């Protein structure tokens, strides 16, 4: 019977490993997000406001292009477009641009714009100081709305990146509106 006890003890240990691995799979989500935030792995820029540090002090002479694009998942209902396609910017300086949204339906559209940056290494260098994407937006019927965006490029951006594209995908809030 000694053997039986031993077997059960081994089984318990293994079940413990098993459970920890199950929990680990869920822990992968925050882990992944942390890794993404640190490395910009998936081009998902933080949807949070960045602190404005003395950006104006160290304006580099480098020039680079920032492009704006958009994608809306219900093109019939909401037209959502950047006002300009491209900007030449210097890292360290704060710039602003607007996205324009037009609700073509007869009812309110509620939703949020989700940003994505390409190349994804650039994601962590793109600092958004003020952005419409920080919160959920409500578009009233027929109205044309200007959505402002203030941003700066961190001067630590690697030299080989010359063009950054910032894309906003507008998702209509369904039952997921309470998340985030």
């Amino acid at each position, binding site marked *: 019977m000694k*053997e039986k006890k*031993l*077997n*059960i003890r*081994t*089984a318990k240990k*293994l*079940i413990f*490993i*098993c*459970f920890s*691995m*199950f*929990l*680990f*799979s*869920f822990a*992968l*989500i925050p882990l*992944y997000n942390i890794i*993404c935030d640190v*490395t*910009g*792995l*998936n*081009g*998902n820029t933080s*949807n949070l406001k960045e602190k404005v540090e003395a950006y104006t002090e160290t304006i580099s002479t480098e020039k680079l292009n920032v492009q704006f694009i958009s994608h809306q*998942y219900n093109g019939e209902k909401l037209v959502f477009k950047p006002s300009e396609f491209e900007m030449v910017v210097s890292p360290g300086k704060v710039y602003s641009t607007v996205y324009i949204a037009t609700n073509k339906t007869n009812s309110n559209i509620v939703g*949020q714009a*989700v940003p994505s940056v*390409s*190349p*994804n*290494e650039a994601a962590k260098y793109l600092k958004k100081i003020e952005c419409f994407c920080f919160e959920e937006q409500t578009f009233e019927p027929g109205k044309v709305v200007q959505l402002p965006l203030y941003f700066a490029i961190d001067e630590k951006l690697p030299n080989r990146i010359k063009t950054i594209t910032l894309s906003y*995908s507008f*998702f*209509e809030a*369904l*039952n*997921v509106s309470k*998340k*985030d």
Partner: protein
Amino acid sequence: MSSVVKDEHHDEHPSGIMRWITTTNHKDIGTLYLWFAMIMFFIGGLMALVIRSELFQPGLQFVDPQFFNSMTTMHALVMIFGVVMPAFTGLANWMIPIMVGGPDMALPRMNNWSFWIMPFAFSMLLSTLFMDGGAPAGGWTLYPPLSLQTGDAFPFLIFAIHFMGLSSIMGAINIVATILNMRAPGMTLMKMPLFVWTWLITAFLLIAVMPVLAGGVTMLLTDKFFGTSFFNAAGGGDPVMFQHIFWFFGHPEVYILILPSFGVVSAIIPTFARKPLFGYASMVYATASIAFLSFIVWAHHMFTVGMPLAGEVFFMFATMLIAVPTGVKVFNWVTTMWKGAMTFETPMLFAIGFIVMFTIGGFSGLMLAITPADFQYHDTYFVVAHFHYVLVPGSIFAIMAACYYWLPKWTGNMYSETLGKTHFWLSTIFVNLTFFPMHFVGLAGMPRRIPDYSLQFADYNMIASIGAFGFGFAQLIFLYLIIKTIKGGTKATDQVWEGAEGLEWTLSSPPPYHSFNTPPVIK
């Protein structure tokens, strides 16, 4: 029945169906696993033949594209979880207690459960074929958002996967406990047969990664039904995240499917070369390093998702490293054969077939590791050719080799060598006819998982389909041979094979229902 369950060492057991339902005997459960795998092999094979019929010629002839996608999805799930894994677990159940000189598996009642969950899981999975919206058609990789478009079948798919996972985790726990605690005195770890070693490592892989798959599919389930957005960009999630979780499970999984075959081949080659296995210790270390590396290479399945340069380079290097321990294994087998005195009975033929064709699959795997080239190979038939080479003439051939090798021991009867050899040659010819042309269509630009293709791929697809039907029918010989051998035949000796060494050959053929109740003496 309970009295029998309680007293495992009693020699009487219920007869008929109740014997099999209530059994806690490792040999019975091993047999159940092997027959289950055999049945699933033909079901999964039938699905493959549906796929190959549709692809026989360009144009849509037999099935709807949606059903075609269901077939590719179900074929993969059935073959991976229903054939290769149970077959290896069956072999483990039969052989590991005998090989280490133990009386039974460590946890016999759990053993019964881990098998009997399987038929339920697979009835559930297969029942989705008759549901509204059809069976799952998003690929066995279940990538969201596509897999979330599955209809009524979705929760059944997820729960079926949970049950399969549960079954294999329970099986794995049992195997680890058996190997660690049930060894006969004197059977030190480094004296264990390699099959036991590879299974020990496989079982640890299973315990480590099956829960991760369970977690991943649970998140899919909550994303679909409970409004979470783990993988939904709209809610702040990332569809690529699922791929990371899936392949964190998936890459160790492919080694779960192949490591026990290394053990089988390492048992067969020395027997028929009449020469001890070359480099036993390095085989053990190579297996362990393959298992370790399998945890840090998962993203090579995702080279095209747009990872940063550093990520691509890291996963390319790590993946290429796997070639080193795998190479060691192949070199060891060849050196074992070198200067031996070989004979070529069916198990040896299958083992040699395994080495050659598994290595071909290994080569294409090395090619796939080269990231820039992978951009051309990814998701094409080249990949299909690659993983079928390591799985069919790899794992499946190893399982067949094991069946031929141990069948005389299990049944006490010799199988027909003529039939066995016919089976081997037909299988080898047709398996190559099926999968070799897939390299060519893949390189020429045919993506995988498509029901119809443009004209330049027509010739090779036709050849592959002919090969698939040939291979399918050749397996009926295998089925016939096994039934025939169980029913009778020339009596096998205890030793069975001239060069065979190991505890299993010291028992009678067939072995007594309860073996090694008194531990054997290990030299």
